[in-house]
């Protein structure tokens, strides 16, 4: 299998990564770059654990070819916190509301929430539910997750966070 070097922009940093055309983004992130925050759940694009942002929009890294992400801006959960290391308001809200149980779905939940709040800072209850409808929580902690997203939206609106 022919290996080639590609450049990927992950969390605003350029990585030169040896890949083959068949490598999936989730595997490249986890095994070649070391961003293990992106989880591999069903591997079929159903569960949302592998959700990342590509050019600001949610995408499923388990059914995305890494080679197809050249020239795009990839955001993983590792790129969500503030530059000083403090948590992003959405992350902080998940912690405060007990929205993290086993934690496996949390990176995907937080990235889906971020994509929503970036484009719609004050979503309705239905809009939040729709935005998270592609993310499964096996602990079934949905209520607290929804509460955390609404609280984060309010906090971000007050603080003028983008």
């Amino acid at each position, binding site marked *: 299998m022919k290996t080639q070097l590609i450049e990927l922009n992950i969390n605003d940093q350029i990585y030169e990564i040896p890949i*083959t*055309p*068949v490598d999936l983004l989730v595997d490249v992130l986890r095994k070649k770059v070391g961003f293990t925050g992106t989880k591999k759940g069903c591997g*079929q*694009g159903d569960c949302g654990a592998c959700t990342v942002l590509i050019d600001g929009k949610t995408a499923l890294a388990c059914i995305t070819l890494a080679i*197809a992400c050249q020239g795009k801006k990839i955001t993983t959960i590792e790129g969500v916190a503030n530059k000083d290391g403090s948590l992003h308001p959405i992350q902080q809200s998940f912690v405060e509301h007990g929205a993290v149980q086993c934690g496996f779905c949390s990176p995907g939940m937080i990235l889906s929430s971020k994509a929503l709040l970036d484009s719609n800072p004050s979503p309705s209850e239905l809009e939040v539910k729709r935005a998270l409808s592609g993310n499964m929580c096996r602990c079934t902690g949905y209520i607290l997750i929804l509460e955390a997203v609404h609280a984060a939206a309010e906090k971000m609106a007050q603080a003028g966070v983008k």
Partner: protein
Amino acid sequence: MYILNNFEYFAPETRSEALELAKKLGSKAKILAGGTDLIIQLKEKMITTENIINISGVDEFKGISCEPGKGAVIGACTKIADIEYSEALRKKYPALSFAAGEIGGPQVRSMATLGGNSCHSSPAAETPSPLSALGAIVVISSKSGDREVPIEEFILGNRKNVLAEGEIVTKFVLPEPAPKSANRYAYIGLRNAMEIDAVNMAVNLVLENDGETIKAIKLVMGSVFPRPLISEKIPALLIGKKLNDELVEQAAEVAQSEAKPITDVRASAEYRRDVVATLTRRLLKEAYAAAKEA
């Protein structure tokens, strides 16, 4: 880590490059657009391929043009989410917008494309039913030129369509909705999100100038036949008449008589037949009321 079979990857940037590659590689290549069906099929080893041509970077295959009085042209690589959120499309073609918004979840909709949904040719696909009700034409391109095929003739059966070697679906052309008309879509699935329709249905209903008599109607059922099923009996029953409760009941019965559902993991044939009647009643009433207001 190497779950997929080994393939060569091509990412053309222009229409002519894409068509050139499609011609050169023919049946030895699969076209990648959003990947929400193709990559899963490759991972599941349902298919293998020697080459992948990723056409998602070709700008000429993307975009929505929907101006007043001019119908719409939608590039095949337009994302489902862009169709869902297009205000212009929602105004003219609510059936298509609604269907687009009910596909998978947000991640799937921001990856998947309109062309992919038709080219995958799943009997349970969401968008072919409204596209057919709206009279959409599929534009198929190759090195030797373009050809146009109505969507219902494009899909031949379960994962079968008329695409020949070297051909790529490049756009969909939708006619301007008729005056005094309304189009609607409805479906039943096991859940609201991340499901595949057990039955879906789209209707496009046109009234005469009196605002009450049905002038034309196209009702298309999905997931009850190997391809989108266009009712022949509904127009025969309803054209020239004013809708009433009795006609709605008769329409539900004739739609049921035409559907040929199967029992599978999502629903039994018996349940699907019941749903066909329910959706027929619901959509006829909704579309008729909306067309009267139009």
